[in-house]
């Protein structure tokens, strides 16, 4: 068959016409009727108009592109979302996370964007649920309360956390900081200024870590020093430990390890060294500084951090195990390692604070004084002639996966380790 020219032209015109109509009417992937975008949704979602009156409206909402995120017919995800809630935002917001972040905000990394942002509209910029630091304080409650309560405030903190922190991730530094310390600090605090140098006793501070002494979130001490300040530091006697500011090596310590601290804390160090068992890191190159901050700290005893962090620096496996075991020991869970151990030295193994494990447990568990399995020096452990039965014969002080911190999965299994005659 041959095409007749007088038929082809009207046929092509019809195709173009239909095609054009189709292009006009098919809005987006759902072939919505013209004008049906978004506004169609409001026919049912009538409360939504109020939301849209907020000053900050998410751009897809503003352009009535509800189907940008939702599937109007059916979806595998809650709220008819077109993709997993954890993935849907980053389909457009691809630059939220840097390529190689040094630190990430867990809530953002987990894709829980709606914990901070309203996906439709909000009163605050970036569709944030609350303004300024108020939003951050929802989770970082203790820090928020502390910031509000401290006597001496740090101006950038007053203006908002995002002055120093990136709320999603940082490619530059840990703790979501926009730059490393001191790089971040010296953007405002000029180390070359006379006043700055005078405050720091003319020691060269440019390369030092400001947060070793100063609490960037505010403090009850002048100069934003951490609340607990080491006496020589408070009295500006830097040269008690360091060489003088005019020395070629001004920050060099006058002695190494524990020998430096011994100058003032000789009694404590002599008592420590008089015990049979030492906590050896105390005697290494860093000495006392392994656990203590020599300048200032927000922890009791000038500890370099919360005790679980300090102990966890070396005993990380023990600390990690504590987090996962089913049956936890409250003092351990609360981080009071010193309820049972001594930090510096002891005459007991494992640096325990009493010669008898039974006495240590008895500090809290007084039940053993009136009703208990036979324990103590007279109770020989049938498994080993050189051991007596103690609390540790059946329980593990740091917790286990069995009930009551037992060492065996069941009580029967535990008891029959010694009482073999009852083993079935």
């Amino acid at each position: 068959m041959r095409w007749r020219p007088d038929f082809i032209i009207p046929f092509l015109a019809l195709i173009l016409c239909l095609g054009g109509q189709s292009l006009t009417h098919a809005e987006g992937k759902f072939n919505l009727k013209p004008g049906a975008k978004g506004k169609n949704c409001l026919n049912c979602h009538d409360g939504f108009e109020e939301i849209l009156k907020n000053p900050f409206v998410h751009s897809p909402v503003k352009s009535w592109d509800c189907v940008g995120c939702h599937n109007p017919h059916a979806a595998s995800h809650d709220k008819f979302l077109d993709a997993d809630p954890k993935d849907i935002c980053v389909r457009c917001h691809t630059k939220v996370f840097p390529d190689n972040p040094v630190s990430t905000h867990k809530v953002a990394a987990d894709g829980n964007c709606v914990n901070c942002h309203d996906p439709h509209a909000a009163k605050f910029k970036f569709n944030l649920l609350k303004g300024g630091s108020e939003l951050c304080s929802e989770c970082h409650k203790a820090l928020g309360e502390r910031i509000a309560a401290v006597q001496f405030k740090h101006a950038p903190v007053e203006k908002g956390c995002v002055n120093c922190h990136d709320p999603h991730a940082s490619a530059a530094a840990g703790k979501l900081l926009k730059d490393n310390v001191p790089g971040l600090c010296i953007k405002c605090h000029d180390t070359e200024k006379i006043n700055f140098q005078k405050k720091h006793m003319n020691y060269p501070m440019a390369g030092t870590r400001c947060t070793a002494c100063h609490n960037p979130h505010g403090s009850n001490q002048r100069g934003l020093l951490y609340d607990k300040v080491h006496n020589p530091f408070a009295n500006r006697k830097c040269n008690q430990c360091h060489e003088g500011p005019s020395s070629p090596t001004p920050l060099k310590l006058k002695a190494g390890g524990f020998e430096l601290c011994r100058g003032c804390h000789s009694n404590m160090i002599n008592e420590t060294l008089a015990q049979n068992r030492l906590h050896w890191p105390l005697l290494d190159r860093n000495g006392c500084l392994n656990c203590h901050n020599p300048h200032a700290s927000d922890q009791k005893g000038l500890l370099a951090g919360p005790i679980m962090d300090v102990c966890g620096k070396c005993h990380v496996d023990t600390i990690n195990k504590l987090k996962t075991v089913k049956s936890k020991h409250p003092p351990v869970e609360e981080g009071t390692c010193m309820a049972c151990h001594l930090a510096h030295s002891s005459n007991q193994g494992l640096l325990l604070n009493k010669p008898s494990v039974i006495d240590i447990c008895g500090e809290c568990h007084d039940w053993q004084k009136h009703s208990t399995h036979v324990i103590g020096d007279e109770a020989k452990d049938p498994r080993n002639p050189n051991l007596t039965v103690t609390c540790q014969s059946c329980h593990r002080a740091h917790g286990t996966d069995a009930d009551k911190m037992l060492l065996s999965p069941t009580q029967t299994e535990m008891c029959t380790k010694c009482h073999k005659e009852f083993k079935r």
Partner: protein
Amino acid sequence: MLMALAPAASFAEQAILFQPVVSIYADAEGQGLLNPEGVACSDNTLIIADTGNNRLLQYMVKVDTVEFASQIKVSQLTNPIRVQVNSQGEIFALDGKNRRIVRLKKDGQFAGNLDLKGVPPDTGATIVPRSFKIDQEDNIFVLDIFSGRVIVLNPQGDYLRQIPFPKEFGFFSDLAVDRGGSVYLIDSANSMVYSAAKEATDFLPLSKSLKEYMNFPTCITTDNRGVLYVTDQNGGSIILLGLDGSFRGRKAGFGWNEGLLNYPAALCINSAGHAFVADRDNNRVQVFR
């Protein structure tokens, strides 16, 4: 007191079974061991640092028995935590309380403190020996944690050289020296092994973190077959590593019965393949083979 050992022939050809053979609980008078933290051995001698009783115990190791020989208790050694014996039978013990290495004659008589002669001061004059080992030529390797270095001394205690600790590490608890003269360090906090070849001037990581296999290693030693043995204190086990740091196996496990360990503190292996483990919190020394 006589304790039977398994036949000791052809160790080099055997797989490392690490089967319990016998346990030492007491001296000849029946006084029990208390928290032993150190062991040293040769083909015919076993020395135990019976730390909780502030004494050393000497045993004769024969082909198939371990026999109590003597107790060594000298006033100059108050808290023995590490012990070594050289090829002449001289005994060296680290006093953990006084942080000095005590030298004893073969019969246990006090022969003086090891005077580290000619050691260059680093962080000051203080030297804190956390551990030490003696190689087959009787050179003494001291783990000085205060200045962060291994000091190498000749048998008379004269300074030969030093190897600084690496820049990044957690905490070194022990060192080992193999037959080829390589020195190994065990990092308890990071569960890593570092090594320095004979005459090397620095330590390099031998392994990545071995936390997958151990959770607080405190002692390292070698045998004559090129195997590193690491005591996993908190895991109650002995970890076997190749000289390249590769994992070769895990032996024993936490417990009280013989064959199990409760905070093992030290390990020594003689050329016959007997492994003597200071099973600290079980108050005994176990012999494996």
